[in-house]
């Protein structure tokens, strides 16, 4: 116990070192610690220990593996069952808020440890997809808008995990395509995109889909859809 019977200011700084290492302190506290570290060799030495613990804790957790697909299957089966019993629940789910909250929850260090640049790309991709999709999730103001969403030629697409937001935007722009729905309940990160405003002959749709499929950097899977 006597370890923490030090002068209160120094003791407080010492206790905050783990949060300084993870970058989760307020600016004010971080500045206090930075000033102290510059002049207090013992505190700096202890900070080195904290950073060592930080690295090993992250590494230890990263070796714990991940859940099997069973967990996801069980979850979405349960959601499907509840939706079937109460279909109106889906409309109360504020996806926009959920996604913006989870995006806000990430830190750069977490991302770096999780999967490096690929993770950043995934998140940006999700944000862009969410933004585009959510634009269409808002309640339609009149019948014609709904009708226009359902008119045209469509495909189901799963974007490649490494595709960046800019690449997806450019990809859709190059084909004059737009996201209309997704991720779909069918799972697998599928999105419905509109290839043309008007219904095209099946052969023409097939040609577009094949061209899109060749862009493997951006498209993981694509198929024509109704």
């Amino acid at each position: 116990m006597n370890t923490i019977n030090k002068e209160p200011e120094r003791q407080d700084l010492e206790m905050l070192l783990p949060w300084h290492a993870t970058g989760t302190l307020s600016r004010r506290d971080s500045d206090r610690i930075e000033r102290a570290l510059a002049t207090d060799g013992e505190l700096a030495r202890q900070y080195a220990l904290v950073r060592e613990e930080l690295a090993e804790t992250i590494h230890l957790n990263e070796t714990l593996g991940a859940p099997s697909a069973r967990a996801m299957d069980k979850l979405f089966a349960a959601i499907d069952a509840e939706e079937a019993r109460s279909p109106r629940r889906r409309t109360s789910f504020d996806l926009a808020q959920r996604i913006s909250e989870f995006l806000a929850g990430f830190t750069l260090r977490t991302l770096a440890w999780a999967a490096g640049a690929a993770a950043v790309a995934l998140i940006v991709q999700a944000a862009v997809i969410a933004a585009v999709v959510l634009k269409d999730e808002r309640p339609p103001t009149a019948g014609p808008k709904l009708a226009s969403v359902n008119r045209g030629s469509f495909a189901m697409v799963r974007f490649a995990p490494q595709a960046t937001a800019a690449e997806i935007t450019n990809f859709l722009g190059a084909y004059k395509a737009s996201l209309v729905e997704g991720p779909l309940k069918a799972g697998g990160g599928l999105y419905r995109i509109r290839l043309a405003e008007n219904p095209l002959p099946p052969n023409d749709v097939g040609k577009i889909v094949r061209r899109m499929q060749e862009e493997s950097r951006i498209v993981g899977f694509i198929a024509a859809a109704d």
Partner: protein
Amino acid sequence: MQVLYARHHVRVFRFVIRIVRDESTAEDLISDVFLDVWRQAGRFQGRSSVSTWMLAVARFKALSALRRRPDEEFDETSTAGIEDGSDDPHTSLEKKDKSALIKRCLAGLSAQHREIIDLVYYHDKSVEEVAAIVGIPENTVKTRVFYARKRLSELLKAEGIERGWP
């Protein structure tokens, strides 16, 4: 929901498995956690981040599951941590490696100490967020982390590594 699950399920799983120490139970629990999140989404007030909210739900469910297993408890004094990947019959060489030793000692912390170290170092939770997840005052969060680190140094010392602190 799929996006939310894709982004968070691994971390929630790792948080849970460090508590329940059983992969199958942890998988069942994360399904329950995300189902609760889906059910309660409309009531989420945004007072904390989604990940903090999910970890709090996960912790509650994991501890409830432990209470249903009569031979398992979230015992503060328990040092029976989940096995570190290095903790196998071939560890004699690894014991000489400081990094592996630190991980062994981290895994050997008590359940409460492991939990709080993970929340701070791995889950990037602030003092306030840890307090919300664990349900303890902020000052207790700070002192618990301090004593967890102190205990880690003691375990390392017993393994022959003198850190010079505390």
